[in-house]
């Protein structure tokens, strides 16, 4: 299953993008209640958004972002029918991306 869900809607020239990502976002500061040891940090570090091959926005995240993270941003210059691509990379080198049609 893709780890990203994306919703993008254009209105009056502004496209609002909302994305929900399936990711543990383990900060590295939580202790395992059974072993008492720190659970290693595992979180999305970088997220990028592209429209027509051009980068529109990029985010740097840390362990302080909630589990199954959410992000919303807005940009101009896209039209309904265009597509937006969102990609993420985490601190363990995992990555994923997805595209969605702007409605």
């Amino acid at each position: 299953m893709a780890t990203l869900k994306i919703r993008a809607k254009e209105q009056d020239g502004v496209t609002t993008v909302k994305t929900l990502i399936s990711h543990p976002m383990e900060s590295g500061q939580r202790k395992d209640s059974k072993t008492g040891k720190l659970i290693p940090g595992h979180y999305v570090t970088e997220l990028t958004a592209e429209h027509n091959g051009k980068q529109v926005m990029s985010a740097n995240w840390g362990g302080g972002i909630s589990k199954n993270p959410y992000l919303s941003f807005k940009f101009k210059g896209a039209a309904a029918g265009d597509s937006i691509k969102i990609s993420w990379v985490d601190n363990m080198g995992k990555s994923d991306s997805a595209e969605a049609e702007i409605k």
Partner: protein
Amino acid sequence: MNLIRRKFVKTTAFLSLGATLAGSGLLIPQRALGAYATDAFAARDVEGAVSGSLGSSSYSASDAVTLKAPDIAENGAVVPVTVSSTMGNVDAISIIAASNPGPLTSTYQLSSACEPFVSTRIKMAKTGDVIAIVKANGKLYSATKEVKVTIGGCGG
């Protein structure tokens, strides 16, 4: 991340240059934009978080920056935060939770196509200030709100 890139990030001038190039879309990131702000995330104080992510630790409160966050967080693990601004030329936004062990929760590089708006959900370890800092025309402007994080009664 190798040592050379680390020094690259630390130097304020280069960081601003990076931000400007990013804004004009001239940097060609296929995935990530330049270097990850490792030092900013590692910073244990607000000053380090701000300067590491936005290149300077000097910011001033402004009515042109709006921060939406709850007065009392329903659950500290998931606190919805929205930052917006009426300013033009906003090319970066950082969201800081002052009472977190690592105050920087996230930082955003916005191209000139972006509206000055970002919404996400952050973790807050305990009651403290959430500070939204917006970078426009090389200067930093902020909005701050105290968010209370409480101990639940239903077994925590």
